[in-house]
């Protein structure tokens, strides 16, 4: 079975960067990517489908990542959500984990592959 991955970010360059890094790290695995560029689109996809892995930005138009996590929690929808964000306040990680995110990664100017591998190990995907 291929691993289904949803990439949620308002930047296509970030979405591209994450898919490239995942494809390289999980090279032995079939990956199927879906994308959403704002929180509303993400919720539409998450209500209709189930994904093995979700990468979620926090600062987005229409609905933020915090709002997406809150909506999913209210509906009792659980997913392997890794927050990938430039919001690096210590409180941000605590909040997203309390809302159900299973991982938290800081965005950096150069994609941090080691951090991604660590998060994937934490959720037993590597």
């Amino acid at each position: 079975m291929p691993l289904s991955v949803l990439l949620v970010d308002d930047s296509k360059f970030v979405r591209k960067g994450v898919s490239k890094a995942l494809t390289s790290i999980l090279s032995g695995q079939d990956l199927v990517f879906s994308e959403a560029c704002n929180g509303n689109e993400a919720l539409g996809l998450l209500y209709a489908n189930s994904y093995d892995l979700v990468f979620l930005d926090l600062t987005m138009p229409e609905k933020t990542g915090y709002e997406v996590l809150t909506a999913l929690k209210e509906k009792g929808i659980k997913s392997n959500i890794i927050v990938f964000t430039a919001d690096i306040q210590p409180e941000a990680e605590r909040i997203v984990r309390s809302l159900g995110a299973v991982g938290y990664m800081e965005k950096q100017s150069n994609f941090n592959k080691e951090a991604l591998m660590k998060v994937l190990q934490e959720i037993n995907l590597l």
Partner: protein
Amino acid sequence: MTNIQYSDDQYEMLREVINLAMGHAGKNLATILNAFVDLSVPEIQIIEAANIAEKVLKESVFDESERVNLFRQNFNSMSFMDGEAIVIFNNETRQKFAQILGVSGQMNSMEEVDFMLELTNLMVGACMNSISEQMFDQKMSFSPPELLSENSVLRNIAYETFKRRNLKWEYTLLSKITFVLKDRSFKSDLLIFISEKAIQAVNKSLNKMLADYE
């Protein structure tokens, strides 16, 4: 007059650069205010000098009739990236500094201004250094922040500050970042004006960054 217009891809890349920079400034602000800062998507546009006041009023987190305090700080890096930043705090926020910081009693006017100067330095420094490092692999130099105006109606001070004759350039690359505390006790707009000359340097840097994704 500038003949540079950025493509959609360049704007998207620049928005992500500024998004990272905003994250650094937000972290510093959260630390000093000991609170959680709500960050929103930054607004970016190359804009004609004559239209700046209206643009600032339209996109500000503040109502144009609100009384505000404006601070300015200039920045540059090795002469190819320069401009100025303006930070706006409203009077409501100013009056809550003591409460936000958990200081007993009220701050006097001078302490409030000093604190806003410190916040300006912190926000502008974190943002601009991050932008410069990402795009040019360099730190920036900064002038000391200065008080531009206090207790002024936003609409009036925006038109006064951004009068055509007060500006050094025909065009600017304007980025607006808003910082709001979750309980709305603190609101601030950070306006970054990249000089006309630097628009070209940013253009080149964006093209290099975009080439990595081809």
